[in-house]
């Protein structure tokens, strides 16, 4: 059993970070120049880390699979970024943001990391404004705020419905400045296929140049993984088509632990699936629930007629509608947290009340708000979202209710990291969505952007210096070391195997199959029998993939099918780990709902006595089962309570 110690300073919570900073070792500017750092990924976490490390004077190499760093999927975040600025003077402070995040995460996050995140949050806004991020403002010229789910204060900063885009452009511009100054070197259109470990330390990566197919070796004194979430394991998700787990997965296979893989966030307001050919799902911002009312028909016969398009939702009278969130959760109504809203939608659809041609949709109705506030006011708040909805669905939400259904959106699980964001491998760090540290079992809205930027701009630059201060005598790492040779051999062998399998099914065929297994057995609701069945199904799929995948094209050329094949093979292995994790966690918490663990009226039931721990999994070889280690969670500041939104 590995002893998992987060290593936060042993002082009161509020003093930990300043105490850490006061004591951490620094690297002198002359020595920084001699130290190389690799950053994998250019989303909010990766770009902000690479820019800051470059600015500090380290030699940074940054990698992305996209054609330019500005396209990373952080760009798609709509709603906003939280910060405990208390500009509205409505009672917010660092402690409250910390408390909301711990509670929203259903008491499965680490207090020390979350407190630090909350305490850093105001600085992020300062920096972004200085970079030119055009946040929404009041007429007085100062910054505007809005409220978000799971909180009682307005602490969300936003840039219309494109906050992620504007923050990413800020980080990208800071990164571009460092590229121009020569402190950061950019490698675009690269997949990172392996992490190289030399004498127990992370010393480099193996990259595939996606344009030429060339296998490249890159060495460094430290490696930072910022490769984002793994929601695409479900095939259909709101993630970008290229979002993948591969860099994090290769870190796992090289010794880093993977924590709480089963914690997946299913977002309640997405555009429903409309056909077999569908390639991805689109999110509609959570902010819509501020003015939209969610309902399904009260009678099954009405639902049936709606599915067959014999009647329209406007034909159903008020008395024949079931506003099920308002009915079940009178206190929070349509603004219950994401996990609760998602499960309630599934419950109604499973019971036969779903609408849309597939029966897997519920209505989000704005007619009351339009009557109350006028169409103009609704258009000012949600105009771009309504337009987007109409573009995709060809239906006008001003006239007829939107149809929505939950979809996979974010993954709280990821590489296990300590207080310093270091994995269990010395010199290997994980930041942003690809680590597990801050959101517990459920992430609050507008907190992903906050975490990515906190990690990259303000945490990692301090914590990595402690490690690098002991590396100043290590000369540049040679890429001809036997460990690099072996890694290149392994990568090349696997690519050859994929190419030469010459089976009969395309990569997408396997990815869809995996997605269906994961959604059915490890999605919004999970049970022991289903999870056990899923392990068998995934094992079969893994073998079928190895024997029967068909990858056209060559190795030494631009070959998108080959890229996908590698990623999907990793997703299949990850799927197995997620299911095992979901199986061992015989409690319901946050996004993880075990049917065996619920209250008599169907609400999630947490089990703090047995499961107040982080499950961190260790890879034990391809033919052995992974081993689970525990990091016990101690709640010294916030006493865990059962969440209630009734």
């Amino acid at each position, binding site marked *: 059993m590995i002893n998992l110690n987060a290593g936060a300073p042993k002082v009161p919570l509020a003093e930990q970070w300043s105490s850490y900073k006061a004591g951490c070792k620094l690297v002198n500017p002359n020595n920084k120049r001699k130290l190389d750092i690799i950053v994998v990924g250019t989303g909010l976490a990766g770009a902000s880390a690479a820019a*800051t490390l470059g600015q500090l004077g380290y030699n940074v190499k940054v990698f992305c699979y996209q054609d*330019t760093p500005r396209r990373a999927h952080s760009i798609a975040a709509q709603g906003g970024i939280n910060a405990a600025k208390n500009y509205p003077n409505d009672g917010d402070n660092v402690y409250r943001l910390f408390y909301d995040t711990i509670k929203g995460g259903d008491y499965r996050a680490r207090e020390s990391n979350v407190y630090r995140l909350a305490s850093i949050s105001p600085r992020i806004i300062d920096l972004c404004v200085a*970079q030119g991020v*055009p946040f929404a403002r009041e007429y007085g010229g100062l910054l505007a705020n809005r409220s978000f789910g799971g909180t009682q204060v307005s602490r969300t900063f936003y840039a219309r419905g494109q906050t992620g885009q504007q923050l990413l*452009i800020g980080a990208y511009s800071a990164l571009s400045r460092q590229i121009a100054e020569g402190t950061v070197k950019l490698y*675009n259109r690269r997949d990172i296929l392996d992490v190289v470990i030399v004498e127990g330390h992370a010393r480099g990566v193996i990259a595939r140049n996606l344009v030429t197919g060339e296998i490249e070796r890159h060495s460094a004194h430290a490696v930072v993984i910022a490769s984002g979430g793994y929601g695409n394991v479900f095939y259909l998700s709101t993630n970008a088509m290229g979002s993948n787990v591969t860099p994090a997965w290769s870190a796992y296979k090289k010794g880093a632990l993977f924590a709480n893989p089963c914690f997946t966030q299913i977002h309640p307001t997405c555009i429903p699936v409309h*056909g077999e050919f569908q*390639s991805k799902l689109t999110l509609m911002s959570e902010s819509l629930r501020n003015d939209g009312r969610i309902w399904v028909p009260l009678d099954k016969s009405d639902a049936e007629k709606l599915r067959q398009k014999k009647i329209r939702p406007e034909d159903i009278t008020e008395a024949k509608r079931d506003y099920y969130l308002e009915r079940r959760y009178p206190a929070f109504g349509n603004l219950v947290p994401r996990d609760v809203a998602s499960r309630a939608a599934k419950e109604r659809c499973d019971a036969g009340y779903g609408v849309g041609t597939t029966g897997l949709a519920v209505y989000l109705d704005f007619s009351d708000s339009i009557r109350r506030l006028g169409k103009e006011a609704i258009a000012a708040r949600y105009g771009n979202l309504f337009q987007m909805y109409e573009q995709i669905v060809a239906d006008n939400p001003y006239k007829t209710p939107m149809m929505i259904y939950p979809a996979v959106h974010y993954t709280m699980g990821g590489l296990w990291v300590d207080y310093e964001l270091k994995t269990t491998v010395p010199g290997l760090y994980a930041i942003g969505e690809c680590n597990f540290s801050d959101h517990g079992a459920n992430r609050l809205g507008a907190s992903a952007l906050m975490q990515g930027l906190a990690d990259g701009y303000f945490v990692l630059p301090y914590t990595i210096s402690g490690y690098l201060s002991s590396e100043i005598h290590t000369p540049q790492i040679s890429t001809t070391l036997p460990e690099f040779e072996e890694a290149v051999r392994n990568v090349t062998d696997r690519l050859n195997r994929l190419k030469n399998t010459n089976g009969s099914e395309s990569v997408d065929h396997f990815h869809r199959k995996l997605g269906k297994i994961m959604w059915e057995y490890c999605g919004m609701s999970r049970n022991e029998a289903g999870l056990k069945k899923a392990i068998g199904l995934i094992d079969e799929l893994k073998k079928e993939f190895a024997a029967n995948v068909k990858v056209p094209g060559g190795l030494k*050329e631009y070959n998108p099918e080959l890229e996908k094949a590698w990623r999907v093979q990793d997703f299949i292995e990850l799927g197995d780990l997620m299911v095992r994790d979901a199986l061992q966690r015989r409690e319901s918490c946050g996004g993880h709902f075990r049917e065996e663990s619920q209250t008599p009226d169907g609400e999630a039931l947490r089990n703090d006595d047995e499961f107040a721990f982080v499950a961190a999994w260790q890879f034990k070889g391809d033919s052995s089962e992974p081993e689970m280690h525990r990091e016990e969670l101690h709640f010294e500041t916030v006493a865990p309570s059962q969440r209630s939104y009734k």
Partner: protein
Amino acid sequence: MIFTLKIWRQKNAADKGGLVTYKVEDISADSSFFEMLDLLNQQLIARGDDPVAFDHDCREGICGTCSLYINGRPHGPLKGVTTCQLHMRSFSNGETIYIEPWRCGAFPVLKDLIVDRSAFDMIIQAGGYISVNSGGIPDANTIPVPKPDSDAAFDAAACIGCGACVASCPNASAMLFVSSKISHLALLPQGRVEAERRVQQMVATMDSLGFGSCSNTYACEAECPKEISVVNIARMNREYLAAKLFAEKEKQISFSL
């Protein structure tokens, strides 16, 4: 729905390339343009052909990865929509659709429909930022910014860097892209500090990368999926002229010293 597709195929940058005709059937009107291409690719893979390579990622109209001329128009027939947000219901059944990569000297084709847009990154690296470090920053509310200025800065900053402006321009000019960045930063007090330096460096880099000049056809504004206004180009020209005058003055002062 049934479509005849004429798609540009090109093995690599050195290959000459040409249009190849394909037929697709059973396409749902609700499927997106890329889902239609996905289906074509599944058919090509099944019969052992090389699938069509195209750039795409978020498929929700914000990352700017997708491109394509569709029947000669960047991002296809609809206004204010990226290729990934285009659906087959916007085409008529049985239609022949021409699909080609961006054509511009500064955006060389890498394979099939994929082009290299690194030139845009190089322009941003020449000054498309505010030179601040991640420390020593004043409180975000220290400098009030008039809401109209902030809104106008946002409008310019909505650019997704897809390159449709260059693709639509008869001169392959990058003025709309560059001016949107110049405007975004010049409209904010935080960005004024180095505005003169920025506009000169970015314009010089743009010119050196082989983009053409602007001749006011406004095709860029018409085809921009984010509907960025050509007002930004006027603002950039003003900024540029003022910066040049200022630079001239600076030189004279140093001369007289």
